[in-house]
């Protein structure tokens, strides 16, 4: 941050993050620096164990880095806050609350003192975005995995965060459901110009959603090996993307990268 003045369109600046669990030990990752522009969707992709989730948790303020810092709007973050919304890997809905109450809890936290009726309208609006208005009186245990994750997304959007953080949000879903929700997510992001930082290990998902991809090398001591700008136009759709020019090249490039990184590790195992 000192070297480079904070440009107004950089919403998030991540500066030389490092995480190590033992003093003097090998860090899980180090020298992680990147920025996210307003309205941009950035995907981090890499093998498990490279500390992706930890990086996301540091951005969320739920974990702390060993060194380095993260700033949003020029303010260094010091803990979790309502300026960042999190969609958790395992939905993290409160099972004793209905769908409506789960979302309403987030809205009331964002707008303390809001009238009961307004909270209800707003809840319905956000549940409508993920087409779950009909299920609003159900409890999470009565919903399918995909529906639960959609409630999680509605809850995260309902606090109108500056930055939306998603940790492999569709990892546990079947391919069909995943596709439907990905489309929904793209739609909502396009409407709201939401800034998103997302973690995935699904290449197609990354190409579909991300404007920019951060490729992580394998851990320990992982770092950002490559930053790929998505050459495909911003209006992408799941139905057509694989016919678009440049899609296969990008996909092959990422695939090669991931396989190469995996091969590099293999001699150790054999």
């Amino acid at each position: 941050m000192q070297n480079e003045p904070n440009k107004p369109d950089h919403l998030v600046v991540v500066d030389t993050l490092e995480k190590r669990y033992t003093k003097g030990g090998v860090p899980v990752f180090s020298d992680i620096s990147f920025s996210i522009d307003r309205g941009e969707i950035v995907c981090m992709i890499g093998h498990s164990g490279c500390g992706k989730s930890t990086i996301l948790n540091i951005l969320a303020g739920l974990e702390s880095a060993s060194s380095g810092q993260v700033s949003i709007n020029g303010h260094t973050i010091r803990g979790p806050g309502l300026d960042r919304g999190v969609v958790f890997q395992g939905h993290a809905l409160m099972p004793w609350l209905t769908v409506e109450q789960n979302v309403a809890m987030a809205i009331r936290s964002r707008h303390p003192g809001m009238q009961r009726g307004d909270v209800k309208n707003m809840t319905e609006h956000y549940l409508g975005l993920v087409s779950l208005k009909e299920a609003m009186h159900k409890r999470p245990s009565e919903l399918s995995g995909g529906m639960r994750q959609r409630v999680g997304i509605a809850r995260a959007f309902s606090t109108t965060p500056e930055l939306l953080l998603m940790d492999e949000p569709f990892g546990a879903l079947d391919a069909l459901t995943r596709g439907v929700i990905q489309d929904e997510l793209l739609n909502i992001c396009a409407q709201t110009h939401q800034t998103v930082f997302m973690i995935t290990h699904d290449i197609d998902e990354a190409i579909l959603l991300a404007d920019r991809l951060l490729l992580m090398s394998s851990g320990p001591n992982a770092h950002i090996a490559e930053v790929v700008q998505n050459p495909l136009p911003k209006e992408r759709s799941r139905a057509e993307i694989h016919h678009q020019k440049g899609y296969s090249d990008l996909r092959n490039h990422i695939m090669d990268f991931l396989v190469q990184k995996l091969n590099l590790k293999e001699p150790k195992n054999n």
Partner: protein
Amino acid sequence: MMRRTDKLKGFALSVLLTLALLLTWQYLTLPFETHVGSSSAQNAEYEMLMGHTPATQQASHNFPSPRQFAVDAWQELKSPFHNTNANNRGIGWQLGASLYRVLIGYGLAVIVAVPLGLLLGQLPILRAGLNPFIQILRPISPLAWMPIALYTIKDAEECGIFVIFICSIWPILLNTSFGVSRLRKEWLDVARTLELSWARRLWLIILPAAAPTIVTGMRVGLGIAWLAIVAAEMLVGSSGIGYFVWNQWNNLSLSNVILAVLLIGVTGMILDTAFAALQRSVSYAE
């Protein structure tokens, strides 16, 4: 879920068992043949002197028959709240006295154990530090506290309440701290990202999440309290259903003893059923 027909069959079986029980009771308390007729004249005179005439034999039969019990029980239940003097109070009055003691002692236990348990659940060091004390104090029979309580507290009424308190506090405390410590990290992470105040975090996340375990602990605690109060009242009471049992035993009024024992069971069941309903209302499926 049980099917409806199965429920009906179960109910029919209960009715049958009740009838069988009554019949057995009736049979065992049949007036047996006295030896008056067959014994010698000398013996007959002796029996007469001892008051064992056939007539009295019938009345002071060792154990009341179901019919005798029904008559005596009705006599007692007709005016459950009569209060002529300290030694002659109605069974409803006595039951009320016991329930009142449990209400105070158990209520205090809940007031102390739930907040303390919430604290212990969130502070592993405090939990580890207090654990040996809890583990030693927990298995102590409530009545073993009685002499210490009587010496220090002196007042019999307060002793009874203390015994209830000390025996029902442990399951509530342990269950509350267990329920809170087992809370899923994700839920707390949600609370943190939503910047919930500690009060809202407690009210919206921690309490509802741990409620099923807390209520289970309260249910167990109440069961123990109800067991303990009867015993405690037999020892020191001047009122209460436990005192009533002991008093009626001294009066050799076995009908009243049976009635009281049944009432203790029914009351315990009603209390437990109420807590089972509470448990259902706070439980959730993950």
